[in-house]
Structures are given as C-alpha cells and as structure tokens.
C-alpha cells in the first residue's frame, strides 16, 4: 500500500459467537449462600403465577463470560485507544478517579428512599454540583433530574410552557435554526409546540432579519445551540435575546457545545433564560457505548417556580432535604432524583480541574479545533470561513468530484486507526465532515490525524476505489443496512 498508516497496525483478533451458542445445561457462573430461613413451597405461594420455564436463557461458566465480553470489547474503538473526533459529541477523556469514587460504598449503595438524616452525603453532592453548574452557566437555579440531553430539552420546554401559561399567554410555537440537532424539533413536538424553521445566514449564524420577521407573540422560545453546530459563536447573541425578549419570548440554549465556553463565557450573561447541559459531554462522564447520559437544566430566576419536583433545600436546622410541595412545578420527569452516579463523576471532574483547569480545558479544546482546521484547510473544502470555536466543519465537495463522499472518507479513517468524525451533519452543509478533537488530544495525536486525512485525500485522487471500499482492516466490512431494515432480525432464535 502506498499510504501506510503510522498510528495503527493490524493484529490478531479473537472470534466469538453469541453467548447462546456456548450455553449448555448444567454450566453455571453463580452460587447462592445456604438459605437461612425455611424453604417455601413456590407452587403454594404463587399458584397460577408461578413460572416454570426460563426459555433459552443461557447457562455458561464464569470464565466463558469473562472471555466472551473481553473478546467483544476488543472489537470496539474507544477514547482510551485514541482520538475520537466526533463533532458535537465531545469525546473527551473519562477520568478513572470518577469511576473509583462512584463506587465508594455509601455512594454506590445509597437507597433513594433512605431517610434524609442518613442521606446528607448524597444531598451535599447534589447541592455542591448544582452550585458549580449554576456559576459555570451564569444562571440562577438548576434541576439535575433529566436523564439525558433530550430529556433536559423536554424538561426545559415544559418549564417554558408553564412560564407562558402563568403569564396568562400560552404560546404556540418554537423557532429552531436549520443547523439544530434533531432532538430539538422532536422535543418541541413532544410538549405540543409547533416547530418553525429558522434560516442561517451566509456565515452560518442565525439570520437576524429572518428572526425579526418570524418573531411574534405566538413564539414561546428560540432553541439555539451556541456555539452552533458549525462550531461558530453567535456573535449577535445578545441581539437575538433582545428580539425574543421584546416580544415576551424566551431564549433556550442547547448546551451540547458548552465545552467551548466553560470558564470563558457564561450563557446567563448573554441573555439565555433556560439551557441544558450534557454531563456526558462537557463534564467527562463516560459515554459507555451510548449512555447513560445526564442532562441538567439551568434556568433564570423567573422560571424557578416551575422546576420539576423534588428540589434540594437547606432546612431550618441546617441539614439538607428534598422539597416536594411546589404548586407551580411542571411535575416529576423521572422517578427518584436523576442519574446520581453521573453527578458524582461530574463533580469529581470539576474538582480535579478547579477554575484554572476548567479554563485551560476550554482554551485547549478551541486551540485543538483551530489547529486541525489550519492543518486541513486547502485539502478539504471549508464551506464557512467564520472563526472556529471547539469544532470545525468541512465538506466533501472536492472529493465528491471523484465520487467519494464524506462517509467513505470516514470509513477509510478507520484503517488509519482513528474513529470517524461526524458525517452528514449539520444538515446545512451538504456532505459535512464535522470534527471536534476536544482538549484531550496531544499535538502528536492531532498531527497523525491531519496526516491521515491528507493521505486519504491523496488516495481519493490516485486510487478512489480503495477509499470507496474501506474499511479494509476491520473484522467485518461494510454491513448491509438495507437488508437489516427490510427484514429485521432483532433477537437470536435457536435453530429448529
């Protein structure tokens, strides 16, 4: 091969079937202690409700389970292996002390209904994290309950709705820029708002004239991501807020890109009324292959009466407790108090950084994105030349001439030892390559990335088929998604 990846080398990979294919009767990975109470007659206790058969549940030994999952794990790419430049996903390092402290006994095993008297430790964590996030966002109050970003959006819009209702002027629609994440319109629909699309201008920012024309007293809020999904800071953000506020609307900020702002700028200072954070992006809690997330919602004072229940309060005797009696609350959005384990990790991350570390983190994240932009400018088309914050969006315009699209380049990147960037998003850039390095990448790793991307661009010129057929190094090649969707096989079944 002409272009030899420097970062990665092929090595032997273990095969492994489905766990059901290893199962046979009599194998076991469990042992219960002897029963210290009298045995019971299950048939007598349960009658017709007794279950007799557990179907095709596996029977395997402990070593087989260890090998099974260890082998499967080696088929995954991960941050721990290298750069994961997924734009808008903020794939940063997941510190291990976070995992250690989340497993300390009283924290891992606390029951959500244990008396408040013996829950002061957990309540203190909720309170301290809340205070940190309130100062980081420049807002006045927060709820930690939402289980993920999209859940936070829903909670935020429910508060928006309750606010307008209390003002005696329920509104009908939400404005959403065309560059927004799909969760924004999906959430607006869930809380029964109509969605109205808002155009971006030639610099990739909100078109102020269009906003002025579309804003009226039917608009409940504008949902804005800032920096937006092009990695561009909305320079007229205060103007945007003013236009909304003048007609009684609210400014909702999707905090997905907060990693560009922490310690440098606070949304509360530039006119945001309500926003959600993604602890699994900005605050280093692990993505874990797709979750759990955590999506706290920070708000300005005027929305405080509508916070979901319960809310942590300091009681007269100085101890902490939960307050449930909040007549204007939007209600409960989740059982118990949210993804507490993620709060522990996020707080540990904030403690490990401190104010100076958080600021340096943001600076490095922005520096890294600009370094990559500089490295790839000219090789890949940059549709918007507006200054870049934490992520940069190229397009496949130059490579498309050879019939190679963003997804093909992404797949070829795998052979070079990198995870692909985000493809085909934001929708306003046809054939987008959306790259977010985060602060966690060293200069060396980014130099390898730039080298790989340039090498792929050269391959597109010389030998496009290699790129079109990529990846070549993975244990499976491109999978037939059409067949998977036409005749879905969603579970294993024993051979007849």
């Amino acid at each position, binding site marked *: 091969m002409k272009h030899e990846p420097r970062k990665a080398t092929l090595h032997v990979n273990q095969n492994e079937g489905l766990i059901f294919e290893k199962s046979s009767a009599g194998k076991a990975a469990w042992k219960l202690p002897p029963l210290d109470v009298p045995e019971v007659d299950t048939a007598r206790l349960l009658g017709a409700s007794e279950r007799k058969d557990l179907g095709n549940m596996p029977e395997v030994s402990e070593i087989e389970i260890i090998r099974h999952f260890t082998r499967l794990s080696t088929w995954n790419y991960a941050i721990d292996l290298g750069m994961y430049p997924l734009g808008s996903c903020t794939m940063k390092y997941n510190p291990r002390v976070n995992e250690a402290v989340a497993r300390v006994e009283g924290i891992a095993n606390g029951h959500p209904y244990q008396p408040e008297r013996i829950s002061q430790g957990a309540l203190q964590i909720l309170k301290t994290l809340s205070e940190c996030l309130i100062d980081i966002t420049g807002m006045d109050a927060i709820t930690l309950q939402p289980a993920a970003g999209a859940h936070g959006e829903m909670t935020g819009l429910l508060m928006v709705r309750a606010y307008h209702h209390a003002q005696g002027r329920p509104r009908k629609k939400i404005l959403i820029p065309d560059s927004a994440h799909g969760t924004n319109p999906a959430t607006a629909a869930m809380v029964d708002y109509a969605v109205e699309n808002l155009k971006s201008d030639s610099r990739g920012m909100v078109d102020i004239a269009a906003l002025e024309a579309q804003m009226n007293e039917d608009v409940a809020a504008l949902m804005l991501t800032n920096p937006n999904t092009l990695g561009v800071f909305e320079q007229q953000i205060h103007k945007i807020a003013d236009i909304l506020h003048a007609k009684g609307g609210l400014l909702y900020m999707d905090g997905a890109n907060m990693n560009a702002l922490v310690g440098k700028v606070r949304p509360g200072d530039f006119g945001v009324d309500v926003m959600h954070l993604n602890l699994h992006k900005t605050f280093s809690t692990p993505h874990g292959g797709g979750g759990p997330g955590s999506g706290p919602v920070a708000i300005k004072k005027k929305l405080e009466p509508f916070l979901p229940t319960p809310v942590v309060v300091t009681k007269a005797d100085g101890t902490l407790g939960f307050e449930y009696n909040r007549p204007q609350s939007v209600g409960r959005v989740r059982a118990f108090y949210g993804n507490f384990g993620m709060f522990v990790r996020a707080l540990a991350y904030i403690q490990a950084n401190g104010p100076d570390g958080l600021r340096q983190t943001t600076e490095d994240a922005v520096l890294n994105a600009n370094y990559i932009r500089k490295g790839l400018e000219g090789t890949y088309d940059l549709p918007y030349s507006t200054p870049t914050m934490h992520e940069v969006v190229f397009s496949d315009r130059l490579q498309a001439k050879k019939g190679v699209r963003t997804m093909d380049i992404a797949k070829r990147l795998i052979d070079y030892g990198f995870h692909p960037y985000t493809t085909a998003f934001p929708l306003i850039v046809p054939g987008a390559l959306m790259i977010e390095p985060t602060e966690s990448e060293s200069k060396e790793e980014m130099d390898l990335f730039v080298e790989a991307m340039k090498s792929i661009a050269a391959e597109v010129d010389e030998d496009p088929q290699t790129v079109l057929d990529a990846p070549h190094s993975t244990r499976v090649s491109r999978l037939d998604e*059409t067949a998977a969707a*036409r005749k879905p096989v969603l579970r294993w079944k024993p051979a007849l």
Partner: protein
Amino acid sequence: MAYPTDRKYTKQHEWIQANGSTGTVGITGHAQESLGDIVFVELPKVGAELAAGKSFGTVESVKAVSDLYAPASGTVTEVNESLATSPESVNKDAHAAWMMKITLKNPKELDALLSAADYEKYVAEEGGH
C-alpha cells in the same frame, strides 16, 4: 427515464392512473431513484378519506423518511399489501409497484396534474439547481 403516458404526475413525484372513478397511485421512478433502497412503505387504512395534496403515508430508506402526498381526493379502497414484505419492488419498477387505489371524489382534479412529458421536463429542471 421513460414515464408511462397512461397516467398523471405530481410535483411531489407521485403518479396516478385513472380508470373511471378509480385512481391507482404510486411513486415515480425518479422518486425511487433519489430515495435509494426502500425498506418500508407505510400506507393508509382502507376506508381512509384523503384530501388532494395531503400526506397519505411515508416511504423509508435506511436513513431517510419521505411523506407521500395524495395526487387527488378520494376514499382508499385497496392498498398493495405485498409492499409490506417486499418494499424492494418499488425500486425494481416504481411504475408497476402501485401503492393504493382510491375512489376519486372529483376526477377533474387530475386535469391540474402534469403529463408524462411535463413531468419529465419538471424533473430535468429541478435537477438543474
């Protein structure tokens, strides 16, 4: 691409073939081509009342969903059940893979639709920008 001349076309890329008061509806070859591999077709229930220009179902590829718009108003009398198990037939021959039959409420509505030649011209122009 050849568009059969025995039917009318919409700018949303559906075709309708009238036979007395019955209209047979499908999507055009151009539509199936731009959608790519079709994996699912969602059709209305028999008996549903449709208004011209309003969505009557969806067609899905792996990563996209498109609404289907009724070329004319009417009542659904039959849907092509075979598309549930073999959506690929739309890719194979979109002009043969009909989706539903309706009783036309007002057959005159078809007069406003495009002829095969006009549709072909429309597609060529649309693709130009």
